[in-house]
């Protein structure tokens, strides 16, 4: 059947984002060549990229490589390679893709990736991270350090939690000084934290623009493309410039009333990572209903800023610790995620919630049936639950997924019409 083509984002920021990321890969390639800048493997979730600035080091995010491959439909080969080594069908496919690439020397851009100076596991809730980086350390022979971030058991972290993380961050600094032979540049670290808080402020304003109807961008599909710069450049001037430009562009759209869709029909909140191997196909399924995502939890794995948190250059270590402990979706507990979504639905005026269960990520997915129960039965929010995977193309059933999405919007359409009719009558 002839699908209506997905809404293309019309504007300059996607291109600028591509350039920034390409530049990042080039610097990684240079690092592989010369060892400068030193590269540090780190995880996206609750990353402490600011700390690296203190050494002029560059972050190496395996997840970004993995998702790039998946979007380019190249993830299956490395996944199979990892499974041949003994990784199970039920292991996180991000890990398998990353390790498969390492063994086969595959990189997203074809350029080289450096051997990390330090494998720095920022353990923020995702237990798979700990295993993943342990394996990376074994295969690369690079030293491993795990920053053990206490999971958020209550609304706010305790002083003991904060002290614990700060102490570990300082241990990392000491270890990095030994490994790089460079002295930790505190001022530069502090400057990075300052840039971060600026970027976070701009990013937060962007997130809030999605409250407009029509929404100027898709807070799931478009937000994901903005996440790269957010994690790689957050502590840099380039980051500030990029997000300022992005904000201006999107504000301009709001002024002229330009949205993702000329006739925005549905506003949804999306929970869970996307099926990267079918990113476009998946987006088309929403586009054919003029359905826009006005908020998403996945766009807050690296940091949750739309509710006010900012890094603080007056207390850089503490605020980095605070960010890792309490201000990213992965280290916050499940009920806090329910509440985050509830606020999205209410404050961003959404018609419904889409829960995308991904086989790979139990952090996101274990318990989403209960989440669904909470939103449908407690709050009466129309909710669609679909299952596939974020990296492994073998788990996406196109016909079934489309069938569910169509049925969901058919029912939303029905109630919308009923309501509109009631108003008219």
């Amino acid at each position: 059947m002839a699908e209506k083509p997905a809404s293309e984002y019309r504007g300059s920021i996607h291109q600028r984002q591509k350039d920034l990321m390409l530049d990042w890969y080039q610097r990684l390639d240079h690092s592989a060549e010369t060892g400068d800048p030193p590269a540090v493997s780190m995880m996206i979730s609750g990353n402490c990229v600011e700390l690296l600035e203190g050494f002029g080091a560059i972050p190496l995010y395996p997840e970004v490589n993995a998702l790039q491959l998946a979007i380019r439909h190249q993830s299956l080969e490395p996944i199979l390679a990892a499974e041949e080594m003994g990784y199970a069908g039920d292991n996180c496919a991000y890990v398998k893709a990353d390790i498969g690439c390492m063994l086969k020397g595959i990189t997203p851009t074809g350029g080289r990736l450096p051997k990390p100076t330090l494998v720095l596991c920022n353990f923020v809730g995702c237990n798979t991270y700990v295993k993943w980086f342990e394996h990376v350390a074994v295969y690369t022979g690079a030293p491993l350090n795990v920053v053990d971030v206490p999971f958020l058991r209550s609304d706010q972290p305790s002083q003991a939690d904060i002290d614990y993380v700060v102490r570990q961050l300082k241990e990392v600094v000491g270890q990095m000084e030994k490994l790089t032979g460079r002295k930790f540049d505190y001022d530069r670290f502090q400057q990075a934290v300052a840039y971060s808080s600026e970027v976070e402020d701009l990013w937060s304003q962007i997130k809030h623009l999605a409250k407009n109807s029509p929404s100027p961008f898709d807070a799931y599909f478009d937000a994901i493309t903005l996440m790269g710069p957010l994690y790689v450049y957050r502590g840099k001037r380039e980051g500030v410039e990029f997000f300022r430009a992005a904000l201006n562009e999107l504000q301009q759209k709001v002024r002229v009333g330009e949205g993702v869709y000329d006739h925005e029909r549905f506003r949804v909140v999306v929970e869970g990572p996307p099926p990267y191997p079918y990113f476009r196909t998946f987006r088309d399924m929403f586009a054919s209903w003029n359905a826009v995502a006005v908020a998403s939890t996945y766009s807050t794995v690296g940091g949750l800023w739309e509710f006010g948190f900012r890094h603080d250059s007056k207390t850089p270590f503490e605020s980095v610790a605070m960010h890792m402990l309490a201000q990213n979706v992965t280290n916050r507990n499940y009920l806090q995620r329910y509440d985050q979504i509830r606020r999205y639905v209410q404050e961003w005026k959404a018609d419904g919630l889409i829960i995308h269960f991904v086989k790979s990520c139990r952090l996101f997915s274990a318990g989403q049936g209960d989440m669904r129960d909470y939103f449908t039965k407690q709050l009466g929010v129309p909710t669609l639950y679909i299952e596939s995977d974020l990296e492994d193309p073998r788990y996406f059933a196109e016909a079934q997924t489309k069938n569910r999405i169509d049925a969901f919007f058919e029912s939303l359409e029905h109630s919308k019409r009923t309501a509109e009719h009631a108003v008219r009558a």
Partner: protein
Amino acid sequence: MPLVAGIDCGSGFTKALVAAQDSPGSELRIMGRGRARSGINVDQAASEALEQALAGTAKSDLNYIAATGFGRYNLSFRDIAITEITTAARGAYFLFPHPGAVLDIGSQTTRAIAVKENGRVNTFKSNDKCAAGSGMFIARAAKYLEVPLEQVGELSLHAAHSHPISSVCAVLAESEIINHVSSGVSVEDILRGIHDSLADRAGALLKRVGLNGELTFIGGVAHQQGMVRALKQRLNVKVNVAEDCEYVCALGAALLGLRRLASRN
């Protein structure tokens, strides 16, 4: 001279093979083979298959009976029960004496076995989460496409293109097949697609046990040239197929039976 029977009590068919050997190492004489639908009563099916295999010789002349396969424990007149994985390796190695891998595609399970010299099992892996990639997968497809099972292998050889099947469920795959049919894809191309996707699944299993050396392909599906070609092409290895490929486990059982017999006296 010692006379032994190997009986493979599979879920679909029961296969019996009677063999004789003067002394360990000396030439093995295969006296006969027999085959019967397994059904519910294992003893009955086994006796029937054995009857044919004995080709006139009295059952009482048998010195040893080794049972293997799914129903091995339900065979009351056995001397020993050995798993079909062990016997598959032994049988395959006897027919093609090179270390390598054995692929056994049965009606329900697909098994990859890495075999050491003298036919010992090194490692093995089987698909037992669901019937994806099993012979049943083909049987159902053939049924749906209204093609007799015997012709499946031949037909897929004449395919122009391959239309891969993505579904992991043998049953849900049917609707994919239907979609292919209704969008005008030829039966040949679909069957080839099925063989290719089966070959890929088998390949994944084989790589996990380590696929070095030659591949010996056994089990009923080995009769399908289309499947053999798919394996050759997808895995680029030498693929051995014995013409009586469904008797390999029975043969392996008979061989191990002879060994036990020898070690007894």
